[in-house]
């Protein structure tokens, strides 16, 4: 192992990265874009549900119910004078998600204390959003109905109405329940994967395709120097991205970082190292940029995106896929990220995940080092 040769490789790789605007874009612009996209646009929170109210009753009571909807931040009233036709047309064109139909005899029933039905029409094409919207609407109507009942009881002089069971909710961690708060930390895993798997998968294959590898092999450079030189350059790039993500996440989006920043950085480095080795390994084995890129997309980037729990909860996956996620390193990293960011947990909680990442990195590094041979064939 010679430091000079290692450094020569490292310096050369840095020059490649800096001079190739495509890889630089991939390395710096894409992560930023992802952050902004996921931070601003893609939110799993359901609010400002476009709502049409079809008030057949036209009474003080029905208007009061409609006011409850317009007063809530979860609903945005598109129209109060709708009809069935308008609701259906709105849903067809995705302009409306919820229709609330207040029946003609609403006020009379409410006055007399009889049960009355309010109809909710929902666009179920996005079932997740629809069921959340239905839940909000239901609880809003239920709250109003409880209030009415209470008022009636007081009027009749039978004292204050106490519901038999009272639910008190307290959310631990991410108590604003903003999806951004768990998406942005998880996004760090995806961003590191872009550098690691996608960019790195090209580096060795490119040398084979350009014929520079044959030349390198005729020099005294050792496989480990080549491997470490390349790794270091991309490692630096990955950590730069990590820093960007951290600054944007905490600074711009206000994601809370409750845990230890050093632990966070250490875990990221561990994950990044393993992922880089995997990219280089694929590149070394295939000797083809296209093949390495596609394999890497399939074997590391997509699992990091889909199977890590970054967006899709692992607990909701079928059993067999849940088992499969056990071998996806990003899964462990995402859970470390969310733990450190949102719960502020320390090594005593995430050591198991860290151990997995450590073992994975060691294994893949050994594999890559062995495959980086000194012979052409």
């Amino acid at each position, binding site marked *: 192992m*010679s430091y*000079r*040769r290692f*450094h*020569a490789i490292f*310096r*050369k790789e840095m*020059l*490649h990265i800096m*001079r*190739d605007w495509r890889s630089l874009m991939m390395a710096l612009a894409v992560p930023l874009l992802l952050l902004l996209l996921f931070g601003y646009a893609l939110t799993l929170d359901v609010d400002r549900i476009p709502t049409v109210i079809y008030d057949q009753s036209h009474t003080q009571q029905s208007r009061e119910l409609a006011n409850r909807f317009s007063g809530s931040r979860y609903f945005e009233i598109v129209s109060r004078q709708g009809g069935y036709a308008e609701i259906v047309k709105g849903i067809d064109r995705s302009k409306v998600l919820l229709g609330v139909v207040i029946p003609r005899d609403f006020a009379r029933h409410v006055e007399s204390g009889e049960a009355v039905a309010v109809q909710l029409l929902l666009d179920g094409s996005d079932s997740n959003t629809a069921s959340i919207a239905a839940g909000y609407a239901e609880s809003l109507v239920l709250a109003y109905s409880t209030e009415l009942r209470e008022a009636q009881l007081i009027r009749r002089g039978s004292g204050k109405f106490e519901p038999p069971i009272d639910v008190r909710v307290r959310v631990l961690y991410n108590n604003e329940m903003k999806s951004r708060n768990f998406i942005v930390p998880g996004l760090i895993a995806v961003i590191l994967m872009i550098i690691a798997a996608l960019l790195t998968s090209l580096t060795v294959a490119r*040398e084979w395709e*350009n*014929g*520079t*590898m*044959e*030349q*390198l*092999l*005729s*020099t*005294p*450079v050792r496989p480990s120097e080549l491997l470490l030189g390349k790794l270091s350059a991309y490692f630096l790039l990955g950590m730069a991205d990590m820093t960007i993500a951290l600054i944007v996440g905490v600074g711009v989006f206000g994601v809370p970082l409750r845990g230890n920043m050093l632990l966070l950085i250490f875990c990221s480095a561990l994950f990044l190292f393993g992922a880089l080795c995997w990219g280089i390994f694929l590149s070394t084995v295939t000797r083809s940029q296209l093949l390495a890129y596609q394999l890497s997309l399939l074997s590391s980037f997509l699992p990091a995106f889909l199977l890590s729990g970054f967006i899709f909860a692992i607990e909701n996956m079928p059993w067999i896929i849940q088992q499969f996620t056990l071998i996806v390193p990003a899964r462990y990293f995402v859970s470390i990220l969310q733990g450190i960011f949102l719960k502020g947990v320390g090594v005593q909680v995430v050591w198991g995940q860290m151990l997995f990442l450590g073992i994975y990195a060691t294994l893949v590094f050994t594999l890559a080092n062995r495959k980086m041979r*000194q*012979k*052409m*064939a």
Partner: protein
Amino acid sequence: MIKLSNVTRRFGRLTAVRGLSLEISESEIFGLVGPDGAGKSTTLRMLCGLMDPSEGAVEVAGLDVGKHLDQVKDQIGYMAQKFGLYGDLTVEENMLFYSDLFGIDPAERDRMMAEYLEMTRMTPFRDRPAAKLSGGMKQKLALMCTLLHRPRVLFLDEPTNGVDPLSRRDFWEILYRLAKEGMTILVSTAYLDEAERCNRVGLMHKGRMIHCDTPAALKAQMAPYCFRAEAADHRAVRAVLQKTEGVLGAEPAGAALHVYLLEGARREDVERASGARLEPLEPSLEDVFIALIRREESHAAA
């Protein structure tokens, strides 16, 4: 300086090099010629330790390549057919990169770089990205990169492929200078005028070295079998000659045909049988190689 003893290299069922033995002495320029697929590149790669021979031993600078690869690498310079220059790096950066890989002392490196840039007249281009150099300059840069560590043996795999004649001449002048300084050079080439410039030439065909000698000796050896035929109707005469017994081949060469005879065939017999008049010919290396390969093929067919 270079020694191959009964070297064979197989790729699966294909035998790229078979039973090759060769010795090249110090400060010799040895040319390896032969058609594509003859095994030239494989031979060079085995000499540089990029591939292992299936059988036989390879020795460079007195060292067994299989056993002392790292020491061998310090002694050799290798320029692959598709040279590994980094197009986005400048001339200077490419040179610095390779000099770092060879661990050359910075002071020595600066001196050598200046000297080589001067010798190749590339000093004005030291800040130009390698991708923006002409074909000839790329080759010169590649050569400089392989020379920085002052190798004792230089391996060049078709170094002047696709380079204009003027740059090729430049390139060869540099090679002569290096050989004069004591460097041993093994160069494979598809250009026979380049083979003519070598001290010795080895002709490879289908993995075997079929002839190996100085260009003059090769020509002298083949002269008795090479003739020239003037003909008004090339195509007809050629067709007749190719069917005539004792004729190895008849190839158009400018206004005439060059006719190669089998060993033991007599000129008079061929003239009588074909009706063509054969004049003795001072063969070029090209004639020698075509004739030798035809002879080899006719042996193989028989």
